[in-house]
């Protein structure tokens, strides 16, 4: 354990072996300011697997999610924050330690709602400080943890229900117990390698009494089985030492999944939901004698539906007869389980329910579409709008500015939304473009109004015109002589880089349309293994038939047309085939046997055809549905004749997707079940990227060809974007050895769009926008900690423009410059002149960047340009810049004028106090200066509704910021106003000069005569100096 932690924080090492050219990088010491932004969205949220609350403080609520980690609310469920980003994001159970409920929390990873797309866990974690620091406490191989029960008087005694592996046999399942706070574990109840503990509850009044349900279950890529002779319910009354089966009253024969719970207010009352052979025996059972006997109460649909997905039953903490059952819609009973009614309208697929500890009318409900709360006992529900935990299967982008992002979600349809939006990326920015479960969504390559989407098993494949709001089903259907088409649950669709109207879709055949899906041609034979034993989905489900299409198998899963040659197409299938055509489908070669070291029939999840070389491709295989959690990533450079593994021990879980950079062939991005990995040496070594990318399952990666943004479609944390990864292209041993290296900067197009926007409420999630500033990017080989460090911008004439705070961390630093120079010095008044705070934008052109580190200087340059898409002429821009400069200077001239007057005013006040003989003279001067000042700046009122009438400072400031912030030329009216203000300023100066001529000469002589130190004024240059 400790060893792992230490290796995690190893000192930054750049070890270069001339033979292997490995560039070993530690992500936390390199990526620095290269940070990801999570843009959600949260409007359709994602699957919540578990809810847990503080035992006495109802403001604190935790949720565990299917793929988005653990979130905490401390305000009664209004705002949630993620507290588990660095660890496995698939959560089975969350438990608050009743011995220290403010600080101690346990999290068992591995979701227990075992649908086809469920992720896996990697053990149990504990925090003693409310989630700021986590420690892994073992049970790594349990894969999914169904429950954690903590002894209410002894924090070191904890029981864990472990369901174990879904996709194969393993012995790390059953009930585990620790008596030393998780240092060591004992398996206190174990049945066999294919039956796990699916529910575990402790008697709330006696921690020695435990109930544990066991479930025999198994998934393969093509089938699911729930039930077996080993499924059973057990009870211990001695803290897990001994167990007895408690089935009196239960159905005989084979059982499936069993949910069990104890009424908190009466521990003799138990409820169990049992999956059984006969429909008449399925459903809710109740025991009134602590499990000695059971009575069947209810077999309604809501109680029996899909036990593998909905086996949770919850009792009101105050009322043993109010029972809520998870299900398709969720059901509630107020008569002890005799009858049920549905919960209020919300997203379907309910997984857990939590009653407020103080008020049972208030409840939270976990669904496939996020977390809901009710204030009236479940009758009406409202969604929590700040949980960006949606589960993308795929992501694609278009070529618009800003570009749009397209993707499909688990049980939440298909969507597209912008990568940037005024005020941030809000829920309302996303548009729905598909029903059901959404998967692959693509924009038409050249027509931004057309897009394609699909639903599960290609039951619907749509072409959508977003302008005309018209949708057409474009799914291919069999023709004479064809067998039934087999489409994957997540059917492969893609567009072509060569023919804009082309669309490919994979069943067991590859289909091609050259007219946007209107007409289709089969362009291959069956490219799968076509194994009939893997095509018996009608028998899938075990005790509860479950043929949803999720287990469709022997299908094409990935289609990769070469970006260099439309005749070259690579195909990967879910049953492990890799096929290649180099003649647009006339002939196909099965390359599978050429991939050495790859277990047979390992799901080919993604093929990436190289954009550097026609013969080069990468293939990613995912074996987890065969209980193989290794990563398989291969590269071929000879059309698939030979393949080389580019996996290293750095990669800690199975992988699904790879993205090749467009400029540097050694820069690759790998999407794994535990986050994003990056290599800069072609796969000789990998580094985990953690700056804003949680350890979530990255299902798909896209690299935007124009912006160089890396877009991740995660299955649990929505869309995550790393803006502009181009600095990574530059990294090599030479760069990494330099004390400071400026990355080449692109010419920045200055942003002239309005700052209007933003209509979300305070409790809604808003995805952050990319930076609109110019960016200065550099690499520091060592963190700057001692001595001064600064960053200055100069224009092409070496005139100083501004100073910016530099980044000082070791690794990549990104410093933002809003392209502004310094704001003018503003006249002092009674109030703040808001409009005069404006700092003018610099003109387009070349600028010098100078970083000073102690006595060392490092220089680079930066070029700014005006937007390409603009209505302003260069003459208008020149006039705007010149006029802004005039008003800037006027602001400072007025500031200096008022400064001079203030100095005399202050002096005269002092003289009046200290020298009676000069009082009259000083008073006259003071009065005349204050009278003049009254028309130059506001001298009365406040900064809100008690503000004084605007004076010259405010009027110049208003015009200055108005003209300065609009990049077209000023209007004639504005220039006329400026002329008027110039006259007023000149008049002010003249009046001050008159006062000086008439009074100040004499005043100086008089004050000096009596020994009073006279006013010392700064020069104008000194007064306005800014650096």
């Amino acid at each position, binding site marked *: 354990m400790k060893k792992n932690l230490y290796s995690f924080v190893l000192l930054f090492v750049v070890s270069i072996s001339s033979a292997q050219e490995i560039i070993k990088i530690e992500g936390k010491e390199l990526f620095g300011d290269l940070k990801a932004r999570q843009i959600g969205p949260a409007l359709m949220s994602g699957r919540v697997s578990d809810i847990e609350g503080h035992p006495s403080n109802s403001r604190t609520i935790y949720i565990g999610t299917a793929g988005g980690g653990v979130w905490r609310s401390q305000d009664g469920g209004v705002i949630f924050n993620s507290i588990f980003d660095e660890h496995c994001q698939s959560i089975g159970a969350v438990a608050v330690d009743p011995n220290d409920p403010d600080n101690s929390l346990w999290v068992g990873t591995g979701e227990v709602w075992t649908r086809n797309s469920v992720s896996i866990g990697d053990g149990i974690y504990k925090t003693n400080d409310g989630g700021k620091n986590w420690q892994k406490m073992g049970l790594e191989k349990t894969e999914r943890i169904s429950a954690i029960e903590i002894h209410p008087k002894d924090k070191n005694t904890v029981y864990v229900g472990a369901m174990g592996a879904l996709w194969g046999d393993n012995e790390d399942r059953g009930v585990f117990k620790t008596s030393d706070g998780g240092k060591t574990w004992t398996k206190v109840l174990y049945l066999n390698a294919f039956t796990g503990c699916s529910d575990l509850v402790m008697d709330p009044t006696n921690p020695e009494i435990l109930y544990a349900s066991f479930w025999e279950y198994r998934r393969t890529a093509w089938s699911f089985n729930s039930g077996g002779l080993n499924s059973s319910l057990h009870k211990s009354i001695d803290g897990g030492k001994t167990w007895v089966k408690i089935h009196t009253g239960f159905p005989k024969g084979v059982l499936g999944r069993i949910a069990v719970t104890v009424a908190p207010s009466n521990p003799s009352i138990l409820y169990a939901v049992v999956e059984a052979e006969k429909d008449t025996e399925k459903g809710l059972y109740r025991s009134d004698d602590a499990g000695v006997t059971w009575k069947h109460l209810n077999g309604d649909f809501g109680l029996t539906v899909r036990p593998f997905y909905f086996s949770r039953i919850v009792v009101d903490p105050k009322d043993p007869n109010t029972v809520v059952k998870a299900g398709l819609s969720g059901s509630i009973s107020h008569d002890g389980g005799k009858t049920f009614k549905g919960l209020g309208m919300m997203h379907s697929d309910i997984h857990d329910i939590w009653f407020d500890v103080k008020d049972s009318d208030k409840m939270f409900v976990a669904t496939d579409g996020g977390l809901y709360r009710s204030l009236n006992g479940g009758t009406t529900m409202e969604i929590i709008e700040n949980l960006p935990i949606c589960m993308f299967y795929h992501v694609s982008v278009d070529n618009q500015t800003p570009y749009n992002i397209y993707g499909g979600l688990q049980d939440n349809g298909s969507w597209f939304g912008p990568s940037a939006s005024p005020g941030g990326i809000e829920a309302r920015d996303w548009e729905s473009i598909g029903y059901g479960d959404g998967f692959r969504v693509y924009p038409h390559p050249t027509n931004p109004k057309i897009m394609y989407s699909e639903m599960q098993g290609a039951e619907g494949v749509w072409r959508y015109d977003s302008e005309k709001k018209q949708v057409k089903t474009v799914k291919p259907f069999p023709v004479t002589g064809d067998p039934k088409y087999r489409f994957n649950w997540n059917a492969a669709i893609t567009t072509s880089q060569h023919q804009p109207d082309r669309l490919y879709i994979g069943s067991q055949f590859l289909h091609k349309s050259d007219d946007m899906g209107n007409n289709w041609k089969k362009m291959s034979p069956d490219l799968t293994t076509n194994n009939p034993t893997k095509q018996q989905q009608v028998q899938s489900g075990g005790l509860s038939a479950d043929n949803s299409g999720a287990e469709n198998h022997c299908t094409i899963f990935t289609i990769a047309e070469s970006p260099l040659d439309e005749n070259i197409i690579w195909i990967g299938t879910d049953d492990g085939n890799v096929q290649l055509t180099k003649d647009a489908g006339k002939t196909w070669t099965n390359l599978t046997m050429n991939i050495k070291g790859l277990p047979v029939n390992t799901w080919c999840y993604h093929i990436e055809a190289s954009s550097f070389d026609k013969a080069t491709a990468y293939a990613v295989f995912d074996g987890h549905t065969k209980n193989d959690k290794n990563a398989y990533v291969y590269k071929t450079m000879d059309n698939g004749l030979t393949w080389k593994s580019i996996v290293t021990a750095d990669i800690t879980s199975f992988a699904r997707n790879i993205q090749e950079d467009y400029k540097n062939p050694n820069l690759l991005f790998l999407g794994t079940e535990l986050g994003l990995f990056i290599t800069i040496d072609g796969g000789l070594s990998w580094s985990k990227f953690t700056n804003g990318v949680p350890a979530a399952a990255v299902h798909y990666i896209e690299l935007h060809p124009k912006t160089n943004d890396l877009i991740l479609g995660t299955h649990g944390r929505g869309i995550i974007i790393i803006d502009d990864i181009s600095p990574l292209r530059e990294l090599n041993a030479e760069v990494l050895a330099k004390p400071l290296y400026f990355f080449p900067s692109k010419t920045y197009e200055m942003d002239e769009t309005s700052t209007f926007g933003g209509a979300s409420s*305070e409790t809604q999630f808003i995805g952050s926008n990319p930076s609109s500033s110019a960016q200065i990017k550099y690499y520091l080989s060592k963190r700057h900690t001692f001595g001064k460090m600064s960053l200055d911008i100069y224009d092409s004439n070496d005139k100083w423009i501004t100073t910016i705070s530099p980044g000082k961390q070791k690794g990549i630093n990104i410093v933002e410059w809003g392209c502004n120079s310094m704001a003018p010095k503003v006249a002092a008044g009674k109030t703040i002149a808001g409009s005069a705070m404006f700092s003018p934008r610099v003109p387009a052109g070349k600028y010098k960047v100078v970083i000073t580190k102690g006595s060392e200087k490092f220089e680079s340059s930066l070029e700014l340009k005006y937007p390409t898409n603009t209505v302003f002429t260069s003459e208008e821009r020149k006039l705007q810049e010149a006029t802004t400069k005039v008003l800037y200077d006027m602001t400072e001239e007025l500031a200096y004028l008022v400064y001079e007057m203030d100095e005399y005013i202050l002096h005269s006040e002092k003289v009046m106090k200290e020298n009676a003989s000069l009082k009259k003279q000083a008073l006259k001067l003071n009065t005349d200066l204050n009278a003049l000042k009254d028309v130059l700046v506001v001298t009365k009122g406040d900064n*809100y509704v008690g503000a004084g009438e605007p004076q010259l400072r405010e009027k110049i400031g208003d015009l200055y910021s108005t003209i300065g912030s609009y990049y077209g030329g000023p209007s004639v009216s504005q220039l006329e106003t400026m002329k008027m203000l110039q006259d007023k300023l000149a008049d002010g100066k003249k009046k001050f000069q008159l006062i000086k001529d008439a009074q100040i000469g004499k005043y100086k002589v008089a004050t000096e005569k009596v020994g009073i130190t006279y006013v010392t004024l700064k020069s104008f240059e000194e007064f306005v100096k800014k650096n």
Partner: protein
Amino acid sequence: MKKITLLTAFIGFAICSFAQSADEIVSKYFENIGGLDKINAIVSVQMKAKVDYGGMSIPIDMVNLKDGKMMMKINFQGKEITQMAFDGETSWSTNFMTMKAEKDDSENTENIKRAASDFISPFVNYKDKGYTVELLPNETIEGVECFKIKLTKKTILSEEKEIPNIEYYYFDKENYVPIVVEQEIPSGEMKGQISQTLYSDYQEVDGLMFAFSMTQKLKDGQGQTIVFESIALNNKFENSIFKFPGE
């Protein structure tokens, strides 16, 4: 010259660093920045700083006294505005709408009173103050491998409840100075999020090393930096600069 001596000392410590306790790390930190005796002899710190914000360079004058009194004043458009002050009893600030002094709420004032003994560093005499330290596994932050120390101080008030007051200090393993301090935001809409303060540009003042640059930010967010232009020790100040001006 003196600075070079101190830096040499840092390197010396780096070489002989091995498994250490939190207490040893804190001791070395004090030793490396100039010694606890010198720190204990300080009665006031005055810092003149500037913040660059939206093209404006805003001068700041900060004064902290050993007894907990403090004052932070900015100069904005020629006006001096006390942005935050504590006179030993009352914590107050200036309302920007009215430009008048207003008292902080009682909870915040109480929390400031409780932090009064954290002059220069909360680690000074931390045991006597009832604070505890715990060494957590090393972490890399700002690209640097650091000792991570959990400092548990006296509880603070949040939403009318006593809550733990915990700060996480990241001491650069090479030289034992803190480069980052993290704290969970205890109240308000941001409650539960992590704030970070980054320290750099350490320079010597009367034989003691002070960070001349401080950046405050949300973890993974953009920061705002304060650059200190001068730090003066043991100047004397009139009580009036801290005093709440009255109702």
